[in-house]
């Protein structure tokens, strides 16, 4: 009996369900923001904040990252459930539980940092102080990412590299098409925040698919 590399392994049902739930959450949030929210806080309350479509996209991605991290944290309370999630034969060891929680914490932290600029704008915090805090948290996030990279084996490193590569090619393709249309005065210019929100959303989507194909989700 031999194992062979699947050419096009099917995505796990739970991942498809998660994508579906994300789409529903986004639609519900959009409808809520368009119809109910203006009635609650007043139709002009958000006018001065200069909110864009990329804020909604970044908020959805940031919240999805935090929900994903929370789900892993909850699952990790039961070593048998965690083992089932990773398709392992026996319950997860305390070390494996610890690693899963650390990875989930870094994931959730990524979502939190992504939300911060919008939270600061909504809270009316001063630019310089807010930026200083973001730089500090970004540095901490980078240290945690490096620590995670050094602590994992070649499977997770390969998965990360594949997700980054696919995100780059998809992202640069989209960016080129938009840039060309912008140069031809067919589309409005993008901000750095627009580009970053799309990049992070793409990365979340691609890394979920790549991880699932490697049996990691």
């Amino acid at each position, binding site marked *: *009996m*031999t*194992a*062979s*590399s*699947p050419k096009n*392994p099917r995505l796990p049902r739970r991942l498809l369900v998660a994508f579906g739930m994300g789409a529903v959450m986004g639609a519900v949030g959009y409808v809520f923001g368009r119809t109910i929210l203006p009635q609650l806080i007043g139709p002009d309350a958000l006018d001065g904040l200069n909110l864009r479509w990329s804020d909604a996209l970044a908020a959805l991605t940031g919240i999805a990252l935090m929900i994903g991290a929370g789900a892993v944290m909850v699952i990790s309370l039961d070593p048998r459930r965690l083992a089932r999630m*990773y*398709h*392992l*034969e*026996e319950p997860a*060891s305390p070390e*494996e539980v610890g*690693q899963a929680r650390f990875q989930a914490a870094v994931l959730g932290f990524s979502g939190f940092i992504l939300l911060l600029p919008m939270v600061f704008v909504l809270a009316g915090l001063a630019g310089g102080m807010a930026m200083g805090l973001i730089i500090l948290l970004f540095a901490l996030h980078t240290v945690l990412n490096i620590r995670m990279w050094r602590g*994992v*084996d*070649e*499977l*997770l490193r*390969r998965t990360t590299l594949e997700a980054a590569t696919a995100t780059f090619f998809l992202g640069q393709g989209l960016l080129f098409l938009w840039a060309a249309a912008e140069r031809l005065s067919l589309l409005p210019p993008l901000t750095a925040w627009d580009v970053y929100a799309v990049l992070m959303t793409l990365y979340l989507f691609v890394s979920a698919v790549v991880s699932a*194909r*490697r*049996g*990691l989700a």
Partner: protein
Amino acid sequence: MNNRLKVLRAERDWSQAHLAELLGVSRQTVNALETGRYDPSLPLAFKIARVFEQPIESIFSEEESNG
């Protein structure tokens, strides 16, 4: 790429955890290798061959092409 990792491990009555420890990788990696979801790097393939005391080509083989 095809591999006989699961058979070789079963023959020795090793757990995934034991094999993972011998190879210095996670159980997730052993599982991904056994289910064909991941092809190992060359250093890991050599390590697997050493652990099972078999040549690499008796553990891993190329997939037969349909054309």
